[in-house]
């Protein structure tokens, strides 16, 4: 029944009032800005070996871009793009990836989180691979944790 209603007349579900939805300047600038924020986050993630940054920084920047999307286009638009179930899988997936790298290095004969054994020929290559993977794990967990906390706060309505 409620599907037949136009979107804007649907009952307001979110406590953060999305009145900016009608503001065309924010929508246009957001459309230009959000992809740049997300790409910058990926740069911080994967360039962390060479420049400042790493998984945590990349995760919070990526999450900030997603939350900006929710502020401009509405919480429901972000929930449609990233459903809560994906967020819940994501927060566990990153930590599992981190721990999994540690377990694999144990299976391959090293100590827990001793990445040197990951490459049979050159320990430095193994270290590089291990750092890349655990930083990715940190990035995934931090991104989805920030989105999960945002969903938890923004999804509550005044009782």
């Amino acid at each position, binding site marked *: 029944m409620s599907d037949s209603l136009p979107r804007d007349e649907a009952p307001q579900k979110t406590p953060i009032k999305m009145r900016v939805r009608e503001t065309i300047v924010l929508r246009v600038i957001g459309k230009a800005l959000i992809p740049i924020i997300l790409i910058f986050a990926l740069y911080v993630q994967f360039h962390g070996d060479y420049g400042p940054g790493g998984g945590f920084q990349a995760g919070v920047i990526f999450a900030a871009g997603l939350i900006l999307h929710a502020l401009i286009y509405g919480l429901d638009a972000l929930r449609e793009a990233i459903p809560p179930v994906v967020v819940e899988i994501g927060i566990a997936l990153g930590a599992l990836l981190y721990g999994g790298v540690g377990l694999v290095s144990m299976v391959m004969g090293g100590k827990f989180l001793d990445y040197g054994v990951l490459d049979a020929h050159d320990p430095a290559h193994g270290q590089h691979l291990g750092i890349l993977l655990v*930083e990715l794990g940190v990035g995934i967990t931090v991104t989805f944790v920030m989105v999960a906390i945002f969903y938890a706060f923004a999804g509550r309505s005044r009782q």
Partner: protein
Amino acid sequence: MGEQAMGAAIEATLFLFMIALAICIARLRSLFAGAMLFGIFSLLAAGMQMMMDAVDVAFTEAAVGAGISTVLFLGALGLTVSEESSARNHRLSALAIVTATGLLLAYGTLDMPAYGDPEAPIHQHVAPHYLVDSEQEIGVPNVVTSVLASYRGYDTFGETTVVLTAAVGAILLLGGSAASASRESEASDAAASDGSDDGGEA
């Protein structure tokens, strides 16, 4: 020398703005303005961390302090009123405790080595090993990444788990999980169809 004077001037300006903002926030009664000023305070703190060459920390401060936590404050404001309700009573005892604590903290810093002092104990223990050998042992040019992800991989794993726990706590306490969202949407659909039925009868 000119560069140093420039840096000191920028740091002094940032400090003055931060102190002014802190006083403003303490005196404000509008919670909305307070949340916004907190965001600006965090952005200034990020600038300060840039001045101290801690670019990673500045990234995090700008994204979390100025961005995400401001949004969370606004989300929380949506659930409450926009003005601080209780009349404020200025107590001299509170002022005395705050002043004494501040003076004690400042006294505590007197023993600490100067900022950036290469002879400081923290730079004598394992830091020389990291700086000299990490290029060969880890092969990653950014020593901060080598330390965080490899030498101190256990700590970072623990921190990741702490962040994970924060989200689990927020989901358990505040809701917003996938299961409760689907329950809510079912409930609201039911309510909406009830409402339209009533409308039809009327």
